[in-house]
């Protein structure tokens, strides 16, 4: 979707404010929201893509005036309600009103192992890759109302395949519970002038990761 999260190329936010190492949190609740988001993910009711879609779906004015962990908090509440793990009445009451569903729970003792294992997103597919390194491709012009990872600034643009990553879970499908639908994933390299016109920095290149369905031969 063309939501407020799709920020590439937008203007008006002012300078970046650098911050020194180790400043991960600015309030205790931020630590807890990060941990809650990771821990309840073990229930397996939604994918990382569904989480991202819940965040990007916030009204743009809300998204752009909320701190990052505030966005996470609101999205987590929505996901819990949408997927039936928590009732809206329970959020309103601020306490549990009924027993929980039976779901897998992340055991404290297994936290280091689970985080260190991660969850790879590459999947075997039968079809060979349509593109190879060096091939010229053009991203498609799409404006889906659902989730996509093809940013607006990189739609309808010609580039060159720089890497072939294997087939990966397709967020456009996975975000909506429609299956992993893996597709070949490529790094595509664009000249800055292709993206931004003649005014672009002459030495600029930008890469994105693009699934095969985002691409046509060029």
């Amino acid at each position: 979707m063309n939501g407020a999260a799709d920020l590439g190329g937008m203007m008006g936010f002012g300078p970046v404010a650098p911050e020194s190492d180790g400043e991960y949190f600015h309030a205790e609740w931020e630590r807890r929201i990060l941990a809650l988001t990771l821990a309840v993910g073990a229930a397996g009711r939604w994918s990382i893509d569904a989480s991202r879609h819940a965040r990007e779906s916030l009204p743009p004015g809300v998204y752009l005036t909320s701190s990052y962990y505030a966005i996470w908090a609101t999205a987590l509440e929505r996901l819990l309600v949408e997927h039936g793990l928590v009732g809206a009445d329970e959020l309103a009451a601020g306490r549990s009103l009924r027993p929980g569903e039976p779901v897998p729970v992340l055991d404290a003792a297994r936290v280091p192992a689970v985080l260190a294992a991660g969850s790879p997103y590459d999947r075997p597919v039968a079809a060979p890759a349509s593109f190879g390194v060096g091939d010229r491709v053009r991203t498609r012009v799409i404006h889906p109302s659902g989730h996509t990872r093809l940013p607006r600034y990189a739609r309808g643009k010609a580039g060159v395949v720089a890497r072939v990553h294997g087939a990966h879970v397709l967020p456009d499908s996975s975000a909506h519970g429609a299956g992993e639908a893996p597709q070949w994933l490529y790094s595509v390299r664009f000249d800055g002038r292709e993206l931004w016109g003649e005014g672009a920095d002459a030495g600029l290149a930008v890469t994105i990761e693009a699934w095969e369905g985002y691409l046509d031969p060029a």
Partner: protein
Amino acid sequence: MATDGTADGGLAARTEALESILVEKGYVQPAALDRIISTYERDVGPRNGAQVVARSWTDPDYRERLRADATAAIAELGFGGRQGEHMVAVENTPDEHHLVVCTLCSCYPWPVLGLPPTWYKSPAYRSRAVLDPRGVLADFGVTLPERTRVTVHDSTAEVRYLVVPMRPAGTEGLDESSLAELVTRDAMIGTALL
């Protein structure tokens, strides 16, 4: 985006309530939450990435393996997992400087760099890094030579980038662990030089 230090609109209370709901319903263990937090506040951070960088500077075979399969090469040093399942290492040279961003959210290589800093998640950085990276670098006090091209990597999938900065001049005598001390988080994102 409000800085995280501003009035939180009741988020402290909301978060506390949410945690108690999830604990009461049996979905999360409080000890698991504590363990997640301590992992990313104490155990996993940019010192990991600095070891990878220092090894690549000192061990040509390792450097080749890092180029060929960064995920596997990083795993040799014991690092990997969540938000680092598919790693790519990109090497700065006098001709090409690399900068990493996630314009769509906050994708970042946790196993080697830890959690992302607030600025990395900010609209200011995400919007401008792909359009005007030299302007962004100026905000960090960094000026690249004119001849140096800039390649910006927008992390739109589950692939995560680690920038290998150029080894500073005059460090020929340093051993690997001393070299690792020189490597900063921002240099491995591409917003600083060494």
